Structures are given as structure tokens and as C-alpha cells.
């Protein structure tokens, strides 16, 4: 097929049109796509553009930030550092997400903006929430209640350890005897 190979000058459609007009390609010899292109033209003429040329580049896209990002930043800076997430396991909702959700709940209740964060922390602590206490800037509130929680949890932990020793022995025997059926495995995965 005769064609002009100057691919950067114009789109394929206009170049083909030129060839047809000047009788280099017969109307009956036009390629398959010509009619389809004519009936359903693309959004923009597929012409080569160069950044150095006169073509106007669209403005830079905006940066995406949400209200939750602010809250999250506050949380990591002032309340508790970021924790590792194991994507493989079915972990519970991470710390900061519960913080944000409770924040929105409190907001719906109609509290003032300044007191909102303190209120959310209070409610979370009241629920028995445990914050990691690695930061210097933590609220006094958290320190006090964390100490209490720790003291409670230590006593519980000691009891658990003694129990675990007994359980682990019996567990070992049980797991060895279990025949894993294929169906149950499939359900898990």
C-alpha cells in the first residue's frame, strides 16, 4: 500500500485521507478501519506531541489528602507509634483505625472540636484499650491508666503462663492425631 511514512506530522486518518484525495489509493482499496474510524472517531486526534513543542500540557493533578490523614498523623505523633501489620493474618482493626472511627462517633454526638481528641482517648481507655507508651509527648491520662492496666495484665499473664505449660503438652498429642480432611482446608483458604 502506498503511504506517507511521516508518522509525526499528522494522524493516520488525515494522512490516509490525503492519499485518497490525491488518488494514490483507490476508494475501493481503502483499509478496513477507515469507515469504522469515520463513524466512531477517537476522543482526540492521535497526533504526535512533544513536550518541547507548542502543545499545552494539562495542569498537574492535585494531591489527595483526607481528614483521616490529619487524625492519623496526630495519632502517630502524639499518642502511639505505628505498629507492624501482618497482611497474611486476619488481624483485628489496627489501633489508629479504631481511634478514627470513635473520633467520628464523638463528632456526631456534637462535642466541641478542641475537646474531641481528649474525649475519644478517654472513651477508648474506658473500654480497656491499650496504647503503646513509647513516646515522650503522651498524655498524662494515658500514662496513669496504662500503668493500672499493666499491673492487672501482669497478674493475668502469670496465671496464663502456668496454664499454657499444661495445655501445650496435651495439644501436641491432639494435633498429631488429627486427620486433616481436604474440605475443611479448602474452606479456610
Amino acid at each position, binding site marked *: *500500500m*502506498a503511504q506517507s511514512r511521516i508518522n509525526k506530522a499528522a494522524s493516520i486518518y488525515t494522512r490516509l485521507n490525503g492519499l485518497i484525495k*490525491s488518488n*494514490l489509493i483507490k476508494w*475501493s*482499496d*481503502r*483499509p*478496513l478501519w477507515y469507515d469504522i474510524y469515520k463513524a466512531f472517531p477517537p476522543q482526540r486526534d492521535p497526533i504526535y506531541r512533544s513536550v518541547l513543542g507548542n502543545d499545552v500540557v494539562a495542569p498537574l493533578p492535585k494531591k489527595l489528602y483526607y481528614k483521616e490523614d490529619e487524625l492519623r498523623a496526630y495519632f502517630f505523633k502524639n499518642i502511639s507509634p505505628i505498629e507492624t501489620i501482618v497482611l497474611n493474618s486476619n488481624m483485628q482493626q489496627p489501633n489508629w483505625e479504631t481511634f478514627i472511627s470513635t473520633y467520628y462517633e464523638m463528632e456526631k454526638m456534637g462535642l466541641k472540636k478542641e475537646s474531641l481528641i481528649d474525649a475519644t482517648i478517654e472513651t477508648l481507655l474506658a473500654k480497656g484499650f491499650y496504647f503503646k507508651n513509647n513516646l515522650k509527648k503522651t498524655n498524662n491520662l494515658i500514662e496513669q491508666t496504662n500503668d493500672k492496666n499493666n499491673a492487672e495484665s501482669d497478674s493475668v499473664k502469670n496465671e496464663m503462663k502456668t496454664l499454657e505449660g499444661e495445655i501445650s503438652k496435651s495439644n501436641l498429642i491432639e494435633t498429631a492425631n488429627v486427620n*486433616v480432611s*481436604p474440605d475443611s*482446608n*479448602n474452606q479456610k*483458604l
Partner: protein
Amino acid sequence: MNFLKLSHLLNPLKINALSSSLPATKKISTTVMSNFYLNSLKLNAKASQLASTTKLPFSDADDKSNNERAENISRAMSYYLEKMAERESLMKFKTEEFEIGKRHLAKMMGENAETFTQDDINRSIEYLLPSGLFNKKARPFLKHPEDYYPKSKLAAFGSDGRPLHHLFYTGNPDFYQIIYELTQKYLNLNRLEDAMNLIKGRMKTIHKTDEADLNTRINLTGSVWIDRNKLNVKFNMKIDELSYNKFIIMLQKLAEHSLSKREETFIGQFIVPFEPPIKLSDIPALLKDETGRPYQELEVRQRTAIVKLKLYEGNGKIKIKAPEGNFNINFFDSLTQREQLLFPFKVVDKINKFDIEMEVNNGGMSCLSKAARYAISKALCCFVSADSIEKLRLAGLLTSDSRPKERKKPGQEGARRRYTWKKR
């Protein structure tokens, strides 16, 4: 018989004669049109002529559906048909010429033209036109044109111009088809393995040394991958070394899969049994002395050096007979050359258990010692067990060094060395 071959080439493809009979397209100014377009116009005109006379070699075309722009679409096919017709007429002409040439030759040799075979032709040409040209392809010949003209390919596309193979546009569909099958098989095995592991209740892939699963993996001991030339011949394709190496890596990966035994027939296409360089059956039997002592005789040449060896069972005596006189191991000055002689015995662990008698001629010292080493290890094969022969092979003692002497260059003292040069 060179003139016969030349006459074959003198006749062009008769394109000029054909194209002159076509409807004139010269009126259109050629400056505007590209040559390519002109050719295609001619082709279209020809296709209509050919279509009436020749039949298609296949019948997958439904003419009804291809009515729209039929001329445009069948351009590739018409070109192919035209080429085929050209070739046919050429071959017809050439075979006639060959028959006449054969008869002339038979007459010259005074033999019967009817019973004159190809062997007779070769013999008589060698007699009439003896040639000392190094390259055998350059020597004069007379053959049937089918034997030396490139064979015509089957069309790779249908009458509507659509290629028959889905990887046609890659340019090497035969080879890439094999790779495509290989990858699909590998992925299928992976899927199967995952499913099986789910049933067995383990998520880790089966370890390579897992004995229970050795039955499911293909066993490749005693075989090697097919080499590139054989592969090209077997599947009738051309692949370069780079893609061949990649292909072998892929094959290796498939073969190492834990379930590769399922694809045994596929992998088996690319496997050749391993052939050791020295077969046990090829090793000559031991000779016996007048006193009944077993020995072996050998002659080895390397570059200009010639070594005639006799190896006896004994206790480590060495006799070397050179043109200058008789010597023992002291014939070789440097320690490395002496070690070369002993090395084969060291590998088999039989130092001081054989006597050597050598006749040495020509060559430099290192070349002689190397030839002697090869001769000794080859002769040793007759005495020792198969395991020891394998040891010798692995040590590289059973391969001869076939490198010739590098030639002296003009303007230089030797092969590499330059003349000493002083500025003033």
C-alpha cells in the same frame, strides 16, 4: 562442467518478459507513486489472470464473505501464486537443460545415456574436469535443479491473507510455538502442584530431595540436552545461540519441577542419550610379549611431534629413544614436563607399576610431553577398570589437543613476537 552451471544462472527469472505483457501503468507519473505501489497494482492485475488458470492449493476460503475489498485482501496470496508459477516454469526449463547436458556428457564418455546415473555424472566430471579447489562446493558439478535450487515454502497464510499460525508475526513461529507450549505446561504443573498441596495440607513447595516425590520428577541421568544444530534439523528451523541458551534454561526449569514426569513425552523430544568419548567396546585387547608379558602399543601425533609408545606392566622403568641417543626420564629437562608423564599414573593411583618405552621424533619438548601424556593415558585404558577410565576422562586426559601450530606473521619474528625495535 563449469559452463553448465553458469548457463543455469544466465537465465533470469523471466520477470521482464512477463511484466511487459501487463496492462500499461506507465502513464501515471512515477514521481508521485512509490515503486511499491506500482508493483502492487501489477500484482492485482496478474492475480486476476492467474486466478482463472491456477487452482488454490487449499480450500478454506469462502468467497461470499470475502467479497468486500477482495482485491486488497488477497494481495499476499496472489503474490505467492505468482511466485509459484514463476518457479514452476523455471524448474521446467532447468530440468530440460539438465537432461540435455546429461546426454552430452554420456556421449563424451562413450556410455549409454539412458542408464547414466548421478554417480556416473559425478565420476565423469571428476575425470574430465579435475579440480583442486579446497571448498568442495566450489568445484564443478552437474545436478538436477531440484537438488540445488532453494525449495519453495508452503504458503503461511490463507487465500484471504490471514496467517495460519497465531505467532506468525514473530517471524519464527515454529520455535516460539515450542516455547509457548513449554510455558503453558509449566504453568499447568504449577497449578496442579498447588491443588495437590492443598489436599495434602501443606503450603510449602515440595523440596528437591523429598524422596517420596522422586517418582513424580523426570530422571535425566545418562542423557543430555539436544544441541543446537540437531534441534534446528529436527524441527526445521533456525535459532541463534542466545535464544537456544534461553530455551535450554527454560527446559531445565520444567525438568526440575516436582511433577515433571507428567510431561515426559514433551521433554523427551529434547533429550539425547549421553555418549562417552571412549566406549568400553572400542578399547583394543592387550598384546603379549615373547616372554608372555602383556603390553600395549600406540602412536600419537601432535603438531609436528610423533610419539611411539609401548606400555608394559612392570615397576616404573622409563626408556626414551630419541634421534640424539637413548635417555631415561632425564630427557625432559623441566619438572613440569616430567610430571606430565607421571600424571596419568597418579590419577589411577598406579605409580611405579608400569614400564614405559618410547620412541620420540620431531617437535618441541612441551609438545612431546603432552603427546606422551595422551599416549600413556590412552594405553592405560587397556589395563585398568571402567571406573578408572572414567576418572581419566574426568581429568581430561582422554581428549587430544587438536590445536595446530599458529602461523608466523609477516613483519614479525614469530606468531606473536615482534622484532626488537630501537628508536636510535
